[in-house]
C-alpha cells in the first residue's frame, strides 16, 4: 500500500484512489465543485488544485491517482507522494480560480435558494478574495425550464457539468448537454426532450451552486430556517434514505441521503415530491364515529368504550368472527402489535388479511438505481409479523356470522374496488385506523386517528430485508396518536391487558424478544444506515399469561 504525505500527515492509502479521496477520508479539506463520488471525473472546475512534489505545476487532486513508486525513487526515502494543500501558491490559485468562477456569477445570494448550503458561498468565504477585478458587464441570461420540475438559472451556473454527467451516467436519459463553448457555454436540453425522467430531481441536489432549482421549492423558504431530519422514504419497498426539511411542522422539501446499501446518493422524484399527497389529504385529527350518515368527533375514551362494547360482547348470542386487515404501509412495531392483537387476543376467532398490494411497474436504471414494483414500503414486515396472513380473505370469510373488522388503512394511495367495498360494507362494525379520509375510512363505523407517514416512527423492512429507521419528520397534531399506541389501547380495552409501553422503543424491544430475526434491532443499533435482517426462521410466538376472559 502506498504511503503518502498530505501536508503533515502520513497516510497509507489504497493503490489507485485519488488524492482528493485520500485527503477527504483523512479529514483534510480540499475544495471542489465538479467532483462527485457517484459520477465520472472531469476535473473541470480546477478548485481542487494541490501542489504535488516533483510535478512542475499544480495538479487537480480529484483526477490524480496514487500509485506506488519503486523503492529507490521514493520521496524522502519512504513516501510515494507528497501533497501540499495549504501552501501559498495553492491558496493563491484557489483565489484565482474562484475569481474566474465568479466572473459571471451574479451577486444574488439573497434571492438564491441555495444560499446557506452553497459551496460557492462557503468557498468564497473561506478561500476566495474579497474583490473581483472584473470590470465588464456580467453576462445575463434568462431562467429556463429544463423540465417540469427543474429550472436553470444560467447566470449562477459554474459549468461543473455534474448534472450533465448525472443524466448520462446515473439516469442514462441524456437530456442535458453543454452547448457552445467558452463564455457562451451553457447547460442545455434538446428542444423535444425535456428533463423529465424519474431521477430528474437529483440534479438539483447535486448542483453545488444555485443554478438548478426545483419548481417545487423555489422561493419558498430559506435553508437556515429548515429543520433537517434523517428518515427513510415510504413510497416504495426500496426504502431510500432521505433528509426531510421542515419548518413549523410543514415539510418544504426532501433530499437524498447517502446510503450505499440502499440508494447510493440519489432518490427518485416519486419520493422527492411525494409528501405533497399528505398535505392535500383531508386529515383525520380526532376519533370519529358514524352518526346520521356522517361522522362526528368523539373522545378517545368514548371511542375505546365503543370498541369494548362492540368487540367484547356478542350481541344476539351469535358467534362472531373478527377480521383484521393489516397494512404494509405501517411500521414493524405497529404490525407486530397488530399481529399480537389478532393472534393472541382474539385467537381462533380472528382472521387476518390485507388489501391487495399496490403494485406498479418496476423501474431499473443502468446505474443500478431502482424503483420497486412494490409500492408499499413494508411488505416484508407485514409478512414477518402477521404470520397467519390469509391471501384470499374475501373467500375465507364466511357469510352470515357477526363480523367485526379492524383495519389499518393503507392511506391516500389506496383505491378500493367494488368487491372490497362490498366486503367492508358487509362488516357489522368496522374500525379503521387512518390519518386521512380515504375511501376505506369513509366506510368505517369508527375512525381512529393515526399518524401520517411523515409522522410515523418505527422500523421498516425493505425488500432486501434491510431494517431501517423511519423517523418522524413532523410531530403529531391534535388528538392523533402513534399507531402502536392505538393498537395497545385496543388490546388493553378489549383484551384486558395492562400493556404500558411508553415509547416505540419499548415496543421495538418486545418485538425483538418475540421474533428472533429482529432481535437486537434497536434504533440505536441500526442507526441511520439500517441493518440487514437476521436470517432466522420465525415461529409463532405466544403471549405469556393470557387473560382468560378476553372475548365472550
Amino acid at each position, binding site marked *: 500500500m502506498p504511503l503518502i504525505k498530505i501536508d503533515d500527515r502520513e497516510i497509507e492509502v489504497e493503490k489507485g484512489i485519488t488524492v482528493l479521496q485520500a485527503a477527504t477520508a483523512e479529514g483534510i479539506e480540499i475544495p471542489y465543485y465538479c467532483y462527485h463520488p457517484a459520477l465520472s471525473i472531469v476535473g473541470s472546475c480546477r478548485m481542487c488544485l494541490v501542489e504535488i512534489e516533483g510535478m512542475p505545476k499544480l495538479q487537480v487532486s480529484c483526477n490524480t491517482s496514487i500509485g506506488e513508486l519503486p523503492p529507490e525513487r521514493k520521496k524522502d526515502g519512504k513516501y510515494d507522494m507528497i501533497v501540499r494543500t495549504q501552501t501559498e501558491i495553492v491558496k493563491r490559485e484557489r483565489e484565482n480560480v474562484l475569481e474566474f468562477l465568479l466572473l459571471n456569477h451574479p451577486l444574488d*445570494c*439573497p*434571492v438564491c435558494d441555495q*444560499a446557506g448550503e452553497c459551496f460557492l458561498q462557503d468557498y468564497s468565504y473561506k478561500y476566495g478574495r474579497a474583490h473581483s477585478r472584473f470590470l465588464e458587464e456580467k453576462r445575463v441570461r434568462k*431562467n429556463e425550464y429544463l423540465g417540469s420540475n427543474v429550472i436553470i438559472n444560467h447566470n449562477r451556473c459554474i459549468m461543473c457539468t455534474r448534472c450533465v454527467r448525472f443524466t448520462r451516467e446515473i439516469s442514462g436519459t441524456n437530456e442535458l448537454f453543454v452547448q457552445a463553448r467558452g463564455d457562451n457555454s451553457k447547460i442545455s436540453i434538446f428542444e423535444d426532450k425535456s428533463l423529465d425522467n424519474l431521477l430528474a430531481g437529483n440534479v438539483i441536489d447535486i448542483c453545488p451552486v444555485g443554478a438548478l432549482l426545483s419548481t417545487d421549492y*423555489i*422561493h*419558498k*423558504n*430559506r435553508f*437556515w*430556517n429548515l429543520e433537517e431530519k434523517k428518515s427513510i422514504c415510504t413510497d416504495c419497498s426500496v426504502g431510500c434514505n432521505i433528509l426531510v426539511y421542515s419548518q413549523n411542522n410543514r415539510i418544504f422539501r426532501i433530499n437524498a441521503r447517502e446510503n450505499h446499501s440502499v440508494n447510493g446518493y440519489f432518490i427518485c422524484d416519486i419520493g422527492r415530491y411525494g409528501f405533497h399527497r399528505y398535505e392535500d389529504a383531508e386529515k383525520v385529527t380526532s376519533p370519529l364515529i358514524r352518526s346520521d350518515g356522517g361522522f362526528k368527533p368523539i373522545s378517545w375514551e368514548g371511542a375505546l368504550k365503543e370498541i369494548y362494547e362492540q368487540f367484547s360482547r356478542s350481541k344476539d348470542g351469535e358467534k362472531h368472527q373478527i377480521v383484521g386487515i393489516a397494512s404494509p404501509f405501517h411500521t414493524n412495531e405497529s404490525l407486530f402489535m397488530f399481529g399480537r392483537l389478532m393472534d393472541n387476543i382474539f385467537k381462533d376467532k380472528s382472521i387476518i388479511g390485507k388489501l391487495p398490494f399496490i403494485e406498479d411497474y418496476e423501474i431499473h436504471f443502468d446505474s443500478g438505481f431502482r424503483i420497486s414494483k412494490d409500492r408499499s414500503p413494508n411488505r416484508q414486515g407485514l409478512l414477518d409479523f402477521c404470520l397467519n396472513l390469509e391471501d384470499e380473505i374475501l373467500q375465507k370469510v364466511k357469510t352470515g356470522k357477526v363480523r367485526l373488522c379492524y383495519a389499518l388503512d393503507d392511506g391516500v394511495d389506496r383505491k378500493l374496488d367494488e368487491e372490497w367495498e362490498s366486503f367492508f360494507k358487509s362488516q357489522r362494525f368496522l374500525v379503521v385506523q387512518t390519518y386521512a379520509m380515504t375511501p376505506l375510512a369513509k366506510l368505517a363505523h369508527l375512525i381512529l386517528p393515526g399518524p401520517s407517514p411523515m409522522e410515523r416512527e418505527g422500523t421498516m423492512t425493505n425488500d432486501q430485508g434491510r431494517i431501517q429507521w423511519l423517523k418522524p419528520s413532523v410531530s403529531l397534531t391534535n388528538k392523533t396518536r402513534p399507531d402502536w399506541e392505538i393498537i395497545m389501547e385496543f388490546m388493553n380495552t378489549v383484551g384486558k391487558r395492562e400493556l404500558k409501553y411508553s415509547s416505540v422503543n419499548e415496543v421495538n424491544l418486545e418485538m425483538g424478544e418475540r421474533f428472533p430475526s429482529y432481535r437486537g434491532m434497536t434504533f440505536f443499533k441500526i442507526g441511520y444506515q439500517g441493518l440487514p435482517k437476521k436470517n432466522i426462521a420465525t415461529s409463532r410466538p405466544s403471549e405469556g399469561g393470557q387473560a382468560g376472559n378476553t372475548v365472550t
Partner: protein
Amino acid sequence: MATVVKSYEPTFRDKLYIPALFQGLMLTFKHMFKKKVTIQYPDEKHVPPEGYRGLHRLNKYPDGRIRCVACEMCAAACPAHCIHIVPEPSPWEEGKERYPVRFDIDLLRCIFCGFCEMACPEKAIELTEIYDFADYSREGLWIDKAGLLEIYELTKTQNYYTVPNDE
C-alpha cells in the same frame, strides 16, 4: 463589623443645620424660574436626534415595486426574532425574482436595534424616526407588509440610512 470612615468633621455651623436648610431652599427656589423642559406632546412634537431608530418601513423602487426580495437576512439578524417573512416568486417579469407575500414585524418584540437595516442587502427595510405608534391591543402592534409600505408612503421624502443611498 463596619468600619467608620470619617472623611469630614462637621463644624458648629454645619451642626446647626439651619443655614444648610436655607441653602437648600434657595436652590430649589432658583430652579423654579429656569427654562421648562416639558414638551406639550400632541401640540408640540419631539424631534428625534439624527440616527434615531423608530418604526420600520419597507422601501419601494420609484416604479412602486417593493425593494424587498424576501431573503430573510433581516429575520436571521434579528436578535429578538420579531420579523416573519413568507417569500414567493415575484409576479413581475423584470427585476428581482422573489418578493415577500407576507412581511410581519412584531413591534412588541422588536428592540429597535437596527440590525435588520444593516443586514438588508437591498436597502429595503429601514427604521424611520416615527416614535409614536402606541396601540390599544397587541394585535395592533403586529405590523404587516401593507402597514410597512404605508409607513414608506408617509415618510418617503426622507432617507434615514446614515450611509447615503448609493442607487
